[in-house]
């Protein structure tokens, strides 16, 4: 089954979504990510969604939820590279990712995690 890879860098987890998100994939990612945060004792999660240029309400909620779950597991979460169209859709849906940090690209996201955590 298709999965989104989760890479480990020290105590950071790096998730890059490079394919079209569909509902099943998003659910799997949620399971995998929460599992890995606990197993690897990760302190930071970076989710790169720069390749995602289309979201519906479900995927929007999944992104929001995944980020929130990571935060609950005490891992600083940064969502990076959101496209303008995706940002507008999420705002229109009322999903403003409260309490989740955002950055323009992976580089800035890493800098943000590095500054706050380690």
């Amino acid at each position, binding site marked *: 089954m298709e999965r989104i890879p989760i890479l480990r860098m020290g105590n950071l987890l790096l998730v890059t979504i490079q394919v079209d998100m569909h509902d099943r994939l998003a659910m799997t990612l949620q399971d995998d990510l929460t599992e890995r945060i606990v197993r690897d004792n990760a302190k930071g999660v970076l989710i790169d969604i720069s390749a995602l240029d289309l979201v519906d309400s479900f995927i929007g909620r999944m992104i929001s939820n995944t980020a929130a779950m990571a935060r609950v597991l005490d891992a600083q979460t940064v*969502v*990076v*590279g*959101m*496209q*303008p169209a*995706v*940002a*507008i859709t*999420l*705002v*229109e849906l009322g999903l*403003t*990712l409260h309490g989740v940090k*955002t*950055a*323009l*690209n992976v580089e*800035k*996201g890493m800098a943000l995690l590095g500054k706050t955590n380690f």
Partner: protein
Amino acid sequence: MTTQDYATRISQLIQEHEAEIGAEWVAQLEALTVRSTVVSKEQLRKHCQQFLTAFSNGTRAGELGNIDHRSWDEVRDLLAEISSTRAKGGSTPSETATFIFSLKQPLFKHLNAGFVNDPAALASASWTISSLLDKFGLYTIEVFQRARDQIIVRQQQELLELSTPVVKLWNGILALPLIGTLDSARTQVVMENILQKIVDTGAAIAIIDITGVPTVDTLVAQHLMKTIAAARLMGADCIISGIRPQIAQTIVHLGVNLEDVTTKASLADAFVVALERTGTSIVKKG
């Protein structure tokens, strides 16, 4: 007598008396038009003369009931030109239509004289010419309206382009000076523009300056908050600047929550904050 015969006779009549009809027509027009400033007298005379020539040429073909016919091409082109010039010049529709309708009186006078021995033919010719001129009158109005519509559409587009510039102030700092009332359509454009620019320049801070926004109501505030939320999702911070005292009062009275947003009174203050956040400072020399 067939239509073709009428047509030939009318055409002859017009050609023979072209100068007189023209002079009477111009006199009539000048008497009727209240504002003669929009179209100069010379231009009016020129138009009248051109139209009469084209009209008598067109009549000769005998298609008196159908103004879409090929023989009227010249007349229609001329009318279209006259109409659109007038529309751009600011004439009223009735002034433009009067141009055609006032031709009736001088023309009928000469028709009367020409058909004096044949009342039946006169009645029929008058009716044909009258309905023909009516059609041309309507045609001018249509062209006039179309020219006006084009002007409006163009202006709307220009306004939309004009109103949403995104300026780069510093490395990583963008400014968006908003001018004029924000409605949904404009906010959409503003939002897309600034988000796209954030992606293009990799800016970390965007300053939205609302000095030029006349009033802020709940809807405008909501639009602003949406833009700020979207920018935040992309990883850029927003600062609102240029809040006038009156607007500050309105915002508080309306109960709009701007607590999560950095707000500054002037663009200069906002710029200083933005520089601080990007780790830059300005030092005065000496």
